[in-house]
């Protein structure tokens, strides 16, 4: 199995609900807590597994806002695991999930240097590295209904911009979405082979405006303008 997420950049509205749901679930999850520093002060900061950034693509008038959620990509070539000297970082062979064993981490930051996607953040209070667990404490929980055995971010997304599944299964929803919508990986040249894929915004046919029937008053105005010009 190769578990991971697909993020649909076409439908993501940038509401940050996934990040909030993630924080809420995981702050009492397996690598809890996700410490906040100075949360009500002038300079609030803290540990998050999922961050959403916002970009403008293209130039006016052909521009577009794209909201960009990012969390751990659970890479096939996870250098973060290779470089970890303590063995705290590991990649599960059964499903490809990359985790940090909080009882082994010494907080050296080295793995965060090796991650291109900014997926790892040091928790200054526990002194250990924190990162997305793909909600490992939800997806295998047999106590909850099957449709809820998904990461918190996927369940919460109001725009259905997030999908969770197995990329090794060619017929899974995520594999199909990547195949049909041209899903891609970020920074492929670094060869980390991230599991998470991104679906590009759909190309919509422009709504035609020239061929619309014009109102009589608009026609009259145009005619008057032309006459007055002469």
């Amino acid at each position, binding site marked *: 199995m190769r578990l991971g997420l697909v993020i649909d950049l076409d439908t993501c509205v940038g509401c*940050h609900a996934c990040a909030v749901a993630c924080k809420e679930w995981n702050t009492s999850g397996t690598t809890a807590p996700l410490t906040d520093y100075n949360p009500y002060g*002038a*300079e*609030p*900061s803290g*540990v*998050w597994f999922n*961050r*959403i*950034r*916002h*970009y*403008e*693509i*293209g*130039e006016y008038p*052909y521009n577009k*806002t*794209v909201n*960009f959620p*990012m969390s751990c990509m659970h890479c096939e070539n996870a*250098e973060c*695991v*290779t*470089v*970890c*000297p*303590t*063995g*705290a970082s590991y990649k599960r062979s059964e499903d490809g999930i990359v985790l940090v064993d909080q*009882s*082994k*981490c*010494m*907080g*050296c*930051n*080295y793995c*965060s*240097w*090796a*991650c*291109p*996607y*900014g997926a790892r*953040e*040091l928790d*200054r209070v*526990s*002194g*250990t590295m924190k990162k997305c667990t793909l909600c490992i404490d939800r997806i295998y929980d047999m106590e909850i209904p099957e449709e809820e055995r998904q990461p918190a971010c996927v369940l919460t997304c109001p725009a259905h911009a997030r999908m969770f599944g197995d990329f090794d299964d060619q017929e899974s929803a995520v594999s199909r979405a990547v195949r049909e919508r041209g899903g*891609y990986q*970020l*920074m*492929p*040249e*670094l*060869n980390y082979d991230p599991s998470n894929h*991104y679906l*590009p915004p759909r190309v919509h046919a422009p709504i035609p405006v020239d061929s619309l029937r014009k109102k009589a008053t608009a026609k009259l105005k145009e005619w008057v303008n032309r006459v007055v010009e002469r």
Partner: protein
Amino acid sequence: MHPALAVIFLTLFSGGGFGLMALVATVNDLQIDGGLNPLQTLVAVLLSLLLVTIGMLSSTAHLANPRNAWRAFTRWRTSWLAREGVVAVLFYPFAIAYLVWVHFTDAPTAPAGLALASLAGGLGLVTIFCQGMIYATLRTIRQWNTALVPVNFYAMGLASGATFLALIRMALGGKATFLAGLAMALIIAVAVLKGIYYFWIGRPSGPTIHTATGFNRSRVRLLDQGHTFGTFLTQEFGHRLPREQALGMKTVMYVLAVVIPLATLAVAVEDTSALAALVAAVSVISGIGVERWLFFVEAQHVVNLYHGRQRC
């Protein structure tokens, strides 16, 4: 990258210490300039151990959870950081054994002593390589991801070690024409290699904001980082040095690490002045300190692309 002093001190001081031990072994092995006398050997090995220990201790100050530091020796099969720890720890018994040997036998060039010294020196050199590889393996930072990094660590560890050795020899009443000459040659090597390195990283390459986001055919501009204040990512990776300031610091680095040591070492040899050699040693280590600071501040991690940089 955030230039954490603890990490800068690790490679700065332990590099000099390992370089010093390697040169003590070489000089005594080959009887260069008649070899070192027992007192000079003792002081040199002690200084080497002191420098390595300062480096090692300061690196643990960088850990957020030092209780688990002992685990850092376990993953030597994959991690250069673990390898560095293992080899650095192996260095101690041999260096200390040589120290004890010289203390009790007064025969620094006896075969058994030389075997210990050579092993310690060799392990020191391997540790310098591991330290360079800690940085050079990171594909995320193009300023580090080059073979020039371990090469430069070698040049600088050996240059500072040679300067220390010349100082010790002169302070303890020996002639150090050859050792000072060796130090000067190594310092010139540092100047050249560091020049090549700066030329190398000056050329843009690697990922851009386009490959980072996947929008390869249009302009990409950050609208909002999505956080109110700084995050771990901006604090750890966000550092940047304006061009003029970088140039200024590089000039300072070259003056401290190259120009002053070369001049003072020449004076030291001319006047057999240990004081001049001391100035050279202090200057070279401060210059390399500035170099190590620049090494961190100039390193631009690709995560900055997601925070709006067009390229790193």
